[in-house]
Every structure is written in C-alpha cells, then in structure tokens.
C-alpha cells in the first residue's frame, strides 16, 4: 500500500476560485487549513493567512507543512472566511486522496500541481482550490494499525483499473514493510 510510511508534505495553497457563502461570492479574508485525515494520531493542522485583498478569487501562495501519518488516506483542505463580526465560516472542503500524489505514475518527491472541487457543509459544489504538493521526506516509522475514517458519501474513490492484458510491463509501486524490530 502506498501509505506504509509516514511522510512530510509541503503543501502550497495557491489560490481559490469562485468561493461563495450562501450563494453569494465572499468579499475577502478567505483562508485555508490543511490537515491529514487520521483518527489515531493527532493530525497537525496548519492554516494560511487570510487574503484581505482578494475576494471570491483569493490568492495566497503560502507553503504549509503537513505531517502525513502512515495509513492516512486523505489530506483535507478547508476554505474558510474570517469575519471579525461573525467569526470563521466554512466555505468548503476537499478530501484529497493521498493516491493522487503518492504512488501514481510519478517519482516520490515530484512536485504536483493539483486542483479540487470544494464542497460546502451541505455537500454542494462551491468553488475550486488550487494547491501544489510535494512529499519532502518519508520516514521509516511503523505503519499505524488503526483504520481510516470513512470519507463523506459524496466522494467516490476510484483507482484506475486497467483490465487490459498488455502482456507487457506492469507498473509496480514499491512496497515498504515496517521494520520488525522497531515498534
């Protein structure tokens, strides 16, 4: 499995598109938080600064570090709007499968530019978030044995299944087994 090791990620939150609250484009002060989804280890959670100047098309270009524990299948990105009067309001979130940047066709520390559809608390589509992700280090700690939480039913995770017999080469993803002597 691609998630057999802990990883450190460098996530750059680049920009957002068409962010709305209750159907109305937001005026300013959008910010984004990122965390790895994992029930067991306390997930580190980092945020960008609010974009005071930008409106519903905010631009941050801010680098955040996220620890991705082994076994964690998603990185969760949430866009919020900060308002001094009303507090923080959730604009939308995106669940990013780790398989989108690990174990696909590319090398481990490749810089990925990714974009995702944000969905609001009701599950409705609400804008797009543009990020870049790079795996910085992978440490050989033991794989955690806890189960991963279920993603929201709206998203379906599908792995590309190649049913075709090529009779040729197959892509192998190197599997790392935890060192038996370390706990």
């Amino acid at each position, binding site marked *: 499995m691609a998630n057999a090791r802990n990883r450190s990620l460098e996530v*750059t939150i680049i920009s957002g*598109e068409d962010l709305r609250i209750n159907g109305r*484009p937001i005026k300013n002060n959008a910010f984004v938080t990122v965390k790895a989804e994992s029930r067991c280890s306390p997930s580190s959670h980092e945020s960008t600064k609010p974009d005071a100047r930008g409106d519903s098309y905010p631009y941050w270009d801010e680098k955040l570090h996220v620890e991705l524990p082994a076994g964690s299948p998603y990185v969760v990105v949430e866009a919020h709007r900060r308002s001094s009067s009303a507090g923080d309001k959730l604009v939308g979130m995106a669940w*990013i499968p780790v398989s989108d940047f690990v174990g*696909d*066709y590319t090398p481990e520390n490749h810089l990925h530019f*990714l*974009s*995702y559809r944000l969905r609001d608390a009701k599950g409705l589509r609400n804008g797009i978030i543009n990020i870049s992700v790079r795996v910085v280090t992978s440490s050989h700690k033991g794989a955690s044995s806890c189960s991963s939480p279920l993603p929201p039913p709206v998203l379906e995770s*599908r792995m590309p299944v190649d049913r075709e017999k090529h009779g040729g080469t197959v892509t192998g993803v190197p599997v790392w087994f935890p060192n038996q002597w370390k706990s």
Partner: protein
Amino acid sequence: MGSCFSDVRGGQQAVGGTRQGPIGGGGGGGNNGGHNDAVDHFFRARGQPALFSQIELSLSASKLRDLDIMSKSDPMAVVYLRKTDGKLEELGRTEVISNSLDPAWIEKISLAYQFETVQHLIFHVYDVDTKYHNLPVKTLKLKDQDFLGEASCVLSEIVTKQSRSLTLSLHNKNLQVGLRNLGTLTIHAEESVASRTAVEITFRCSHLENKDIFSKSDPFLRISRVVESGGSLPICKTEVINNNLNPTWRPLCLSMQQFGSKENPLVIECFDFNTSGNHALIGKLQKSIADLEKLHKERNGANFTITASHHGHEKVLRSQLFVDQFLEKQQYSFLDYISSGFELNFMVAVDFTASNGNPRNPDSLHYMDPSGRYNPYQQAIMEVGEVIQFYDSDRRFTAWGFGGRTYDGTVSHCFNLNGSQDGYEVEGVEGIMAAYAGALHNVSLAGPTLFGQVINRAAQVAGHSLSHNHSKYYVLLIITDGVLTDQQETIDALVRASDLPLSILIVGVGGADFTQMEKLDADNGIRLESSTGRVATRDIVQFVPMREVHRGSISVVQALLEELPGQFLTYMRARDIKPRAQMPL
C-alpha cells in the same frame, strides 16, 4: 513562477472562450477558471500568427569550386523557402565576398520560425562576376551568375541542434552528388533577442464607471495589438475582479513576441464582465509598452476615453490607468529548451472501431488507396509526425490502436500497432505508417470508442519519464472517427494526466457529430472535473475535426500544433525547469 502565453485562437470567429491558464502562475493573462465561459471573441488577422520566433541565419561555406581563371570565385548565397506548391520564395541574399573559396558572409537572412510547419530551406551559392560587384545585391539577376552549388534542409534541423548549426554538402541542381566535390555550406541560426524578452506589468485603475445596476462593475482589461490592416488583435487579458471600481489586477506577463516591439501601439480596453458574455466597455486607451514604462516611472495615470454615442467624439473619462509595477525580464524560449536537449516524444493512437467501415471498402476511412492517396488516418499521422519528428532525437515513436480485436480474439482498447507483445515503439514516421498498414490486416475492427486506456498508458509513460529527467514532453495524437462512449472515464483519465508533461491532440475524421468531443477541449474556460472531485490542472487537450475548413496555408491538423510550444513552455515555467546549461560552441 509567472507564466506568459497568448490566448489567441486561430481561424474562424468561434465564440469560444479563452485558453485555460495554468494555475499557480500568477495573473499571466489567465482567466478565472469557470468564471468566464465565452468571455470573448478572439480572431486572428489573416495569415498573421500570434506567436512565432524571429530567426536570423548566418551562412558560411568552405572549399567552393573555383570558377575564375585569374583569381578565386566571388561567392554570394541566396536563401529560399520552398512552399507547399513547390515554388521557391526568396527570403534573402548575402553580400558578395571577393576572391574567396571559404566565405563567411556577414549579411544575415531573417525568417520567422513556425513550429507547426515543416519549413524547407533551399540555398543556392553563386559566383558573381566582377562587373556586378558594386551593384546592390538585390538587383543581381541570378541567371547571369555562375552557379556554384545547392543545398537544402529543414529549419527545424538547424534550430534543434545544440550548436544551432548545420553543415551541408553542396550539390548540383540535378542532385548529382559526388560527381565533383562542390564544397560545403554551414548555416547557423540565431533567435532574435525579442524572443526572450518579456515584461511583467501590474495594472491598477481608479474611478472606473459603474456599469452594474445593483452592485459595482466587475472590471477586467483586454490588451490588443494594432495591426497594419487597421484592426487590433487581442493578445492578453487580466482576470476579472468582482465589484470594484478601483481594482489592482495580478501581474500580467507579456512576451515581446506578443507585443512586437516596445513602440508598437497597444489598445487597452477596460470592460465590465457580464455572465451573458456581453461585456460593457468602460473605457479604452492606446499606449505602447514604452509608454507604459514611462507611466510607471513617472507614477502617472492615463485617462480612459470612450466614444460618446451621440456625436462620435472621444470623451475623456475620469477613470485612469496606472502601472504600479513594470518589470522587464528575460525568459527562455522554446528553442532554448529544445536546443539544450529537451525533446518532444510523439505517440499515436488509431481508432479501430467498426464505425470506420471495412478497410477493403473504398468508402472506409481506413481504405488504403492503391493510387497512394492518403486516407484521413495516414494524413493526420503524416502531418503531425513530419513536424514533430525533428524534435525527437531517436525518432522512436509510440504507436497504439484502440477498439480493435487483436490476434487473440479479444477487443483491446490499447494495443501495440506493430503487433508486438512488448514494444510499443516504431522507428520514424514511416515506421508508424508501416505498423498501421500491418495492423489493418491483422486486427479486425470492433468497438466501442474508449479513450481512457490509451490516455492512462500515455500518462504512465510520461510519468515514468519523470524519474529519469524532466526534459521529455509527450504529445499524444488520437485519431478517431467516432464519438466517445466513456465520456466520464476519459475525463477522469485526462484530469489525472493534466499535471504531467503531456499534451493530447484529438483529430476527428469522417462525418460524425463531434460536439461532445469539443467539451474535452476546455476552450470555453470550464475546467474538466473528475468523478473524484479533482479538477484538471491545465487544459492539455485540443480537438479539431479534420473536415473543418481552415484559412491559410496550413491544414487544420497542423494548426493544432501551434499551441504546443506554448503548452510546453507553460509546463516548464510553472515548475521553474530551465534549459540545460548550454555548452560552448
């Protein structure tokens, strides 16, 4: 990480959108993803390409034939472009050098490098008689001169080399090589400085007029270049800023290839964005890049004007344009990358679905005409292959078929065209044509039309190459006669491939209704979205139906190629990948 590109689309006045901009690339003339569908009309003046590079050729020769009795030959070289109809168009001539069999001419010949065509160059060397020596070279009648030799090559052969030089043996006009040693000709190509120059400008406006009723205007700027015919050619536009009469847009990057020269007048228009596509003009002004630089230095604003409807005068508005930042920079050109070793790898996927018709039937799209006339598949393969082959050093191309029933009786949606089990590569464009002809005998047409597997395989190849280096860029040409059956699966595969060094060109042949395919080519500004919620990083697909009528001398298929250098540069610049250090000559 700023990226610059032109979103001018050639040909018809399609009410298309703008070309999707790369993400993470600042303002760069990009638009706001799904915010703009059908934002604008972009048209191209007849025969004027938006992005090309000006090249200068320097010539030298050695060991020329000695035709003069008392002294050596006095050589001069003439350069021609061979057009598609076979006629030669003279591009220029060098000066005459007296008394030398190893001339190094000083006079350079200029021409525009066009990636999407095969530019055949013919060189003639003449010995100019003494009595003509003081006349302007242009006036010399070539038939009065003594012919010393001829050479020919394709421009891409020269510009793709690291030394940007090519040495050719001269021969007689009848191509009788080896009869006598006629010497050699060396051609060196250099890109003009303009191809690397770009400016990054941050525009701001004040006191824009309110065109919206219930809120403020949503302004954006469109910059156009004035052309000789009198009209203007849009070259760039900013993003739309909502609800703001004093906006500052993200920095806009313009390459000199787009604006021509710093003195060229540019028309800058400010519009209020309307979702209907009918944007209201707030005001316009005309400034050159040099003028904008002055505005920046002096921290002045320029007033917009608008044509007052009733008396046709230009009314000066209170709205002003400011240049908050002006940065001139050099960026690597497409040829800088190519000559430093970057390559374009060509992959072809041919449709073997039953809708093409039995290949033995003259009505079939796969019919191989004994007269040698190409069927649409062969045509598309040749037109793309013959251009791209110069950008691939080993000329090993990938050739696949899809939708056919192979030797083992099963229908495959990605099989090797050469019939082999392990290797999907063939040698040269002729290798693709041979594999295609062979496959027509061995594979029976089946169906349905699915692209997903071919795209996934191409993505796999492109992704794997990243483990070795970042200097390969892949171009997948899919030639199909029909409409997709797996639209969502294809979109998923495209989204997964959108962050890889890959561009996909789809050519539709035959008479089917291809409207659905046009959705894959996100020219309307809507980014493709996969079933897992991921959105395409960039627009890597272009589609054209072969039957589309095209203006100008290039085919519709070759017009697809025009965008490739831009897509390649966007990918490289977004990742800050630079050309490899050039070795000294």
